[in-house]
């Protein structure tokens, strides 16, 4: 039993969903995603038990590419994030009606497949292939099932696609260059490379372009808000919950260890840029009029902090970043789902049209409130653990980084509470707001339970991740 099984299940699931017909598509997809989750949990157990679950088969001889999947703690944590969010995301779709839902859910599963592959791949080209593959389903999901004006949507989605593809192509060149030097794409061979500082700088920034667009780090973020707004909420969840973690994960897995000299050289600049993203995202979020866009900018701010954590090159920073990635994944999915729940009832994301929901839906209000609080990293939620660790690591680098990064706890509270106030509170809305259904409740409760449980007891995740981070740091400091 090895990790390729997860990929296989997800791929088969996509196929089965496609073949199952529109009526059962969502259920089949849910089933397969749950199987994948189960399988991943078993594999994590194997991993913790010391069983070898890696795969390494030769694939292409010329150029020398292997089908190599390596599961260390970091990868498994990200895989778990993917496979546990996927069923939830699919479940959120139960309240929507999608035309041609078999295509839709097949694409969702396919995307999960590609993202899982990205997290597991230990061969540069394989990784790149998965990385690109993940882009195609989300492109179609956003394009075909998105909302809002078709022309604007098209513009936004195409921009997103071209932009991210463009960034990744530079990464591809970097891989080509690395391959020429190493004669292999295998991660371990790339780690062993001894490149000069100049070479590393080039490679570092080629990678950076790809990741900065994907994560996104300002000023490469301009695709984000529009796409989040225009994509169907499931797509937005996939994008914000999992896909942007691909970029952050890749920073840790590929960019830093392959070009450590450059990483060290440019560390202050990059942290500064990331933190500028935190502040910028927060400030832009303040006056957003669209709920989804506001959440998009909040996401920009949060990932900025995560990226800053990654670029500290310290064990604390990396481990905090990973925790925060997972926490952010859960919380942002929840928040977007809350937006979707509102949209289902009121048909709008415009904040000024909302308000006065709390008197009508106390259950929803409570759950939304908890998610909002988690997103502003209230102690006791997993987000706090992540944010605290990241900020702590930043303070070790330079206290000013921590202070400026820390403004997120003020500004974040400001825009989130303001949003909450305008969306939920106030005089009872004239339109009827039915409280959450069972399906919706299940999703919320699982998300919240996760956030609270790991907020109080983050040890399992941290213990899973930390050994691999130590390994990566060893490589960085080789």
């Amino acid at each position, binding site marked *: 039993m090895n990790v390729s099984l997860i990929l296989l299940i997800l791929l088969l699931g996509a196929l089965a969903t496609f073949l199952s017909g529109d009526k059962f598509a969502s259920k089949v997809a849910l089933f397969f995603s749950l199987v994948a989750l189960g399988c991943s949990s078993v594999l994590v157990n194997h991993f913790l038990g010391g069983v070898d679950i890696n795969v390494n088969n030769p694939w*292409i*001889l*010329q*150029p020398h590419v292997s089908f190599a999947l390596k599961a260390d703690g970091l990868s498994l944590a990200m895989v778990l994030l993917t496979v546990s969010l996927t069923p939830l995301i699919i479940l959120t779709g139960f309240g929507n009606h999608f035309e041609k839902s078999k295509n839709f859910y097949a694409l969702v599963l396919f995307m999960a497949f590609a993202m899982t592959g990205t997290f597991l791949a230990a061969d540069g*080209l394989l990784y*790149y*292939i998965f990385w*690109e*593959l993940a*882009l*195609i389903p989300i492109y*179609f999901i956003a*394009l*075909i099932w998105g909302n809002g004006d*078709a022309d604007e*949507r*098209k513009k936004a989605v*195409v921009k997103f*696609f*071209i932009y991210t*593809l*463009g960034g990744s*192509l*530079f990464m*591809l*060149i970097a891989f*080509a*260059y690395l*391959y*020429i030097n190493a004669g292999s794409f295998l991660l371990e061979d790339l780690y062993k490379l001894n490149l000069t500082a100049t070479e590393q700088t080039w490679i570092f920034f080629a990678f950076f372009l790809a990741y900065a667009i994907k994560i996104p780090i300002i000023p490469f973020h301009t695709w984000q808000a529009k796409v989040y707004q225009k994509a169907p909420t499931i797509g937005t969840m996939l994008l914000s919950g999992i896909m942007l973690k691909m970029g952050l994960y890749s920073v840790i897995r590929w960019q830093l260890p392959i070009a450590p000299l450059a990483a060290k050289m440019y560390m202050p600049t990059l942290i500064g840029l990331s933190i500028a993203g935190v502040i910028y995202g927060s400030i832009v979020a303040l006056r957003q009029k669209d709920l989804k866009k506001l959440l998009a900018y909040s996401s920009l701010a949060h990932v900025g902090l995560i990226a800053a954590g990654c670029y500290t090159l310290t064990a604390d920073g990396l481990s905090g970043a990973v925790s925060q990635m997972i926490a952010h994944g859960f919380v942002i999915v929840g928040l977007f789902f809350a937006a979707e729940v509102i949209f289902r009832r009121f048909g709008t994301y415009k904040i000024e049209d909302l308000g006065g929901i709390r008197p009508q839906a106390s259950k929803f209000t409570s759950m939304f409130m908890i998610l909002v609080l988690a997103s502003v990293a209230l102690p006791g939620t997993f987000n706090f653990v992540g944010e605290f660790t990241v900020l702590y690591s930043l303070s070790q680098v330079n206290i000013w980084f921590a202070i400026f990064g820390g403004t997120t706890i003020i500004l974040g509270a400001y825009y989130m509470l303001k949003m909450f106030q305008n969306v939920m509170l106030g005089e009872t809305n004239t339109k009827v707001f039915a409280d959450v259904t069972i399906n919706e409740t299940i999703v919320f409760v699982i998300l919240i339970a996760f956030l609270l449980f790991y907020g109080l007891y983050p040890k399992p995740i941290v213990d899973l991740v930390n050994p691999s981070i130590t390994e990566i740091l060893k490589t960085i400091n080789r």
Partner: protein
Amino acid sequence: MITLIAITALGVFCLIAEIFNLRKALVPVTVLGLLGILGSTLNLYSLGELSSDYNTMIFADNYAKTYSSLFILLTVFLVAMSHDVYKEHQTKISDYVAIKVFLLAGAVAMVSFANLSMYFLGIETLSIALYTLAGSSRLDIKSNEAGMKYFLMGSFASGFILFGICLIYGTFGTFDLKEISEFSGALDKAIWFSIGVSLITIGMLFKIAAVPFHFWAPDVYEGSPSLVTATMSTLAKVVAFAALYKLLAAMNLFPTIQFQNIIVTVSILSMTVGNIMALRQENVKRMLAFSGISHAGFMLMTVLSIANAASNLCYYTYAYALAGMAAFAVIIAVTKNKDNENISHFNGLGRSNPLLAAVLTAALLSMAGIPIFAGFFAKFNLFTQTIQAGYLVVVIAGVINSIISVGYYFKLILAMYTKETQETTQNIPFVYYAVGVISILINLVIGMHPNVITDLLN
């Protein structure tokens, strides 16, 4: 060699079939015949037979066999589609098919020549066949114009090629490629030789439609009947490239810095001009013509590392030609009874005919170089090789162009998936599905196992 003879024989059969009124059987028999030839060509690999030398006219090495297989495969697709395309011209179908088969003969000659005269005959056979085909829609002014333009410019270019051959002959006194290769390996070469090679190269740059010799391509592609455009865009372009590569590899001219600069410039120009011009095109065939120009720019990169890029070029041509064939199968099917090939005809195809839309999408993705389609590995190998040869500038230009190219490929995809159709769906014959799906499947397979192709050459 047997390949060439068999193909010619098959062409003659087509003509005879008309006489004996075997029109119904024509297409199936030709397809079967071509498949048989394909089988025998592939079989030559297993026999390990390297050469069958007819007075050193033909040299059937792996290079020739690999490309010949591709050409035959493409012709099978083209002929298969002919049946439906020429349904209303039953009396002429044998002519059309015969010309295609002869065209294939010319193509095979162009990759398996061992003598410049064979090369010249090949290129002329191919070209004359294409002139005819381009103008084959007699009553259509656009087709006339396309034929005329292609003919005038093509024969003009032939003049340059001929002059080039002449100068090479004048330098060494031989047409034999092997001898020329040996002579040209010597350090001091007469300037006439270099000029000759340059002129041949120019002629071939015209054939592959590289900037600044590309102007004919969009007009001719647009004006010709779609099936002919498919031939030009897949078969003719690939053939010209294979021949150019083979020639340049033999001529040992490459080490001069100036020549490299020329190739770099032409390559970057072709990519850029092709892509930028393609952005604003409304006609799909015209758009693909410009896309073909940019692909020519990409393929020119192989010339920069000519000593060992054969397999990469071969892989690229397979990827490009198969994707192009799939795309054209859909385009022909969709625009069959339309006046033009505007993108608007593709509106809503994703809804009205998901399979065709999927095939076209896949084809475009492959051309754009998205993994797992073959186009990705094609580009990647190209980039790797070119970086290795030290031409980072070209690669960066290539990357930027890949980004631009997504813009227009996706214009078509967007039209298929987001626009509403105004047109009623029509019955689309099975053959288009077959051609499209098979081409894309082969594209996918070689995308996931690139070694299938690259091994053929080694």
